[in-house]
């Protein structure tokens, strides 16, 4: 029998629909992979094998009864532990939410269950999605299934913040997983682990029930092995939700049916400002290769300018912490989660003690930065100025769309790095998001697809950024790259 854990979303759905294997068989196979890798990779905070089986049994029963099957029928997935799941611990990888069992289900996860998907477990991540290497989780680091080909066996970063998601999909613990992207948290981990991931236009996926980090930036999206699987899963996740005030009231396009790698008549913009001084040569080479592939797919290549690119990261590191400091004010030891009540402490002391005990160092750092830039006397110099520069960054993209349909760039400035290599210096870690943050600030759809391996044997990703609401254009350019890159590499199993 086929090893079903080598199959993606489309193949599993088709196999289940045709009766080549049952949904329960698929769930059991992935459950086994999850259990076998848990010790070594730490990709899950809470595995939920019984949930996966339960959903699979429902799909098998529906098929036996001749009922119509959903878009994700029989596909077990990993759920980033930022999505509230009813009755299942939801922590955002923090101590402050340890033991929190929501009484409700996030809109996105509910839509996936309604489409026939099942849950393999809650995936590890950077604490409150703050990090680029999955080294800030209260529940320990996620280890990438990839290793350098130097025989050194150094533990590598799976990227972040959706590092549990990327590790799980790359290691065949799940055919697909949910991610969330605030400044690159879907695209960067996808690039680091040789998988695909798309962040849709801001507002496509409901934020209801997603633990908030920076509300004007947070957007959910799928992470999977290929572009088609991303299209299928994004269709299942997206859609208007009256419970999210920033949800887009627009129909969800049929992205899967609309897939086409033929780019004749399309213009692909190459932003001059992304070619950084001292850029990693292999990253530059893979970008050039990507340009050649898109040309081969029929696209016209045009050079464009996004003049405010260099200001995107500092803008992000004002706006995101500012919003985070406000969002995280809710963790007070009163309504849910941890409470630290020192002897004889009053209410204010309890707040301060609870938050000190419940948040990790990176979360505290960002709360302090955010509080500072929003405080009286500094608000205009930092926060208002950052919002104005954000407007200019967004305007750069609007002007670029007069000349091109999509933009091609690297996803990350380097391949994955070893754990501990960048965690001592927060600024160095932040620079990892240099190529992914601008699209986040402008709310644009953007995806990463694998382009190849570097000389160390590690994956590199290419990023496609699209116009607002044009996920189709992004997916199509991704497909054109995918079909030419022929990326079949996978981490050699050592766990």
């Amino acid at each position: 029998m086929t090893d079903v854990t080598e199959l993606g979303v489309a193949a599993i759905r088709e196999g289940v629909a045709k009766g080549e294997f049952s949904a329960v068989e698929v769930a059991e196979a992935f459950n086994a992979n999850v259990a076998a890798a848990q010790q070594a990779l730490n990709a899950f905070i809470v595995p939920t094998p019984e949930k996966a089986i339960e959903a699979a049994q429902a799909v098998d029963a529906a098929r036996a009864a001749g009922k119509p099957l959903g878009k994700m029928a029989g596909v077990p997935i990993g759920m980033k532990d930022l999505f509230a799941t009813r009755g299942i611990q939801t922590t955002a990888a923090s101590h402050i939410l340890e033991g929190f069992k929501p009484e409700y289900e996030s809109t996105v996860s509910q839509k996936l269950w309604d489409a026939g998907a099942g849950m393999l477990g809650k995936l590890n991540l950077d604490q409150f999605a703050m990090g680029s290497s999955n080294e800030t989780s209260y529940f320990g680091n996620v280890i990438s299934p990839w290793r350098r080909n130097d025989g050194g066996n150094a533990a590598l970063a799976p990227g972040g913040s959706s590092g549990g998601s990327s590790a799980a999909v790359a290691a065949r613990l799940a055919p697909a997983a949910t991610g969330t992207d605030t400044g690159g948290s879907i695209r960067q981990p996808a690039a680091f682990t040789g998988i695909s991931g798309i962040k849709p236009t801001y507002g496509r996926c409901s934020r209801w029930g997603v633990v908030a980090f920076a509300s004007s930036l947070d957007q959910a999206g799928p992470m999977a092995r290929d572009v088609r699987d991303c299209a299928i899963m994004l269709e299942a996740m997206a859609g208007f939700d009256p419970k999210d005030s920033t949800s887009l009231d627009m129909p969800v396009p049929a992205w899967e049916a609309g897939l086409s790698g033929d780019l004749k008549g399309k213009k692909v913009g190459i932003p001059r400002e992304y070619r950084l001084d001292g850029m990693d040569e292999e990253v530059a080479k893979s970008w050039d290769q990507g340009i050649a592939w898109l040309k081969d797919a029929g696209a016209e290549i045009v050079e464009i300018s996004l003049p405010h690119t260099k200001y995107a990261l500092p803008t992000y590191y004002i706006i995101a912490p500012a919003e985070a400091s406000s969002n995280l004010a809710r963790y007070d030891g009163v309504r849910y989660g941890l409470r630290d009540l020192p002897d004889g402490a009053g209410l204010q002391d309890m707040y301060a003690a609870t938050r000190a005990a419940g948040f990790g160092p990176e979360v505290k750092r960002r709360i302090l930065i955010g509080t500072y830039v929003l405080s009286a006397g500094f608000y205009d110099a930092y926060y208002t100025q950052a919002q104005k520069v954000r407007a200019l960054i967004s305007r750069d993209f609007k002007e670029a769309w007069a000349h091109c349909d999509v933009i091609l760039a690297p996803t990350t400035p380097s391949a994955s790095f070893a754990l501990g290599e960048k965690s001592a210096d927060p600024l160095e870690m932040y620079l990892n998001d240099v190529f992914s943050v601008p699209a986040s600030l402008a709310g644009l759809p953007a995806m990463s697809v694998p382009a190849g391996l570097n000389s160390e044997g590690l994956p590199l990703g290419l990023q496609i950024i699209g116009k607002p609401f044009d996920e189709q254009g992004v997916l199509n350019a991704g497909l054109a790259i995918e079909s030419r890159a022929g990326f079949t590499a996978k981490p050699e199993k050592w766990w």
Partner: protein
Amino acid sequence: MSVDTATVAKIAALARLKVSEAEIAAMVPELNGILAWVEQLGEVDCTGIEPMTAVIPNTLRLRDDVIDADPLTGGGKRDDVLANAPAAEHGFFGVPKVIE
């Protein structure tokens, strides 16, 4: 602009984060490093630019003025709301004494 130990202590108090003197001492250079880096935004000419608050044009909707229009977010959820409270008592959130 740079921060000193007194400023960090004040921000931490505003953010309701208990921090030790040693933690403050460690945070001062870290925060200064980050602040010095973000200060480059000051060189951008933003004359006549409106601060961006919403990235995708969207209007804020008002829900219909109907009780329990959406049962998920409507009323009657006291026990659900209290289910995860560290100290729920008699249908309320329990907190340390606030009024002397």
